[in-house]
């Protein structure tokens, strides 16, 4: 294989990784806004769903760039297989493996959503929840393998992403009106009442 290395490929690998994480954060926050039924007045709920879908596509694209540039760059020795099979990289085995797990989960979420009409809704839902796990893996990977995470700006970005997702998740759990036994989600309308409170 041609020795293909250049600072620009390496920089692209790093920055696309950071952008992927930021995009993932946005996607998760938008997903939480959908499930908590935010919107309907100035911003349409359907618009939030559309944004969630388009930004997830953008995230996947940046993720692909991150993977491709990391693999082809011979500065670090990572083979294609390591993109999807964890623990196969000789460079930073565990940190890369965690990133691989994140990719696997995100792929599962994204693909299952592309095939949403064809798969069982409950299966889709279960897979979709692993987005949270993929975020944890992605953030851990960013911290452990990320070259920029030892720079201030890197830590700020990472901290911002993690903080945002954590807060949004807490808000989702606490802030939602109580569900009616979980089989039917409650629509938070003005005068809605939880009959079983």
């Amino acid at each position, binding site marked *: 294989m041609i020795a293909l290395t250049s600072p620009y490929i390496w920089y692209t690998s790093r920055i696309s990784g950071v952008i992927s994480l930021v995009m993932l954060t946005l996607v998760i926050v938008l997903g939480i806004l959908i499930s908590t*039924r935010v919107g309907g007045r100035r911003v349409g709920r359907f618009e939030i*769903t559309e944004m969630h879908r388009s930004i997830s596509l953008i995230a996947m694209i940046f993720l692909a760039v991150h993977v491709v540039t990391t693999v082809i760059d011979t500065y670090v020795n990572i083979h294609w297989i390591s993109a999807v099979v964890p623990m196969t990289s000789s460079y930073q085995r565990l940190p890369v493996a965690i990133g691989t797990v994140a990719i696997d989960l995100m792929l599962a979420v994204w693909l299952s959503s592309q095939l949403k009409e064809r798969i069982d809704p409950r299966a889709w839902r279960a897979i979709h929840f692993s987005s949270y796990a993929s975020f944890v893996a992605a953030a851990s990977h960013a911290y452990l393998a990320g070259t920029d995470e030892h720079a201030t700006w890197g830590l700020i970005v990472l901290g911002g992403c993690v903080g945002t997702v954590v807060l949004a998740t807490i808000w989702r759990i606490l802030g939602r009106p109580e569900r009616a036994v979980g089989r039917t989600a409650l629509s938070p309308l003005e005068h809605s009442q939880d009959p079983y409170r």
Partner: protein
Amino acid sequence: MGRTVTFRMVVDPIRCDGFGHCAELAPELVTLDEWGYPILQVEPFPQSDRELHRSAQLAVRGCPRQALTLQKITAAQSSELPERR
């Protein structure tokens, strides 16, 4: 003998979780009850109403739980329509 093709939007009430996207995307066909669940127009609309058809398609695609379907009704079937909303 007219062969009017009409359409009607139908909801699976079990899948529906009251997200309300349908009311935003097809307000001519959907209103929400006080709990956020859709009340669908019962009368079918003609295929010739392109805008309405488009709204309905967007609503069907936009439903987060895929609870909506667009039911095609030929003139022969219209007498046997079950009364669902």
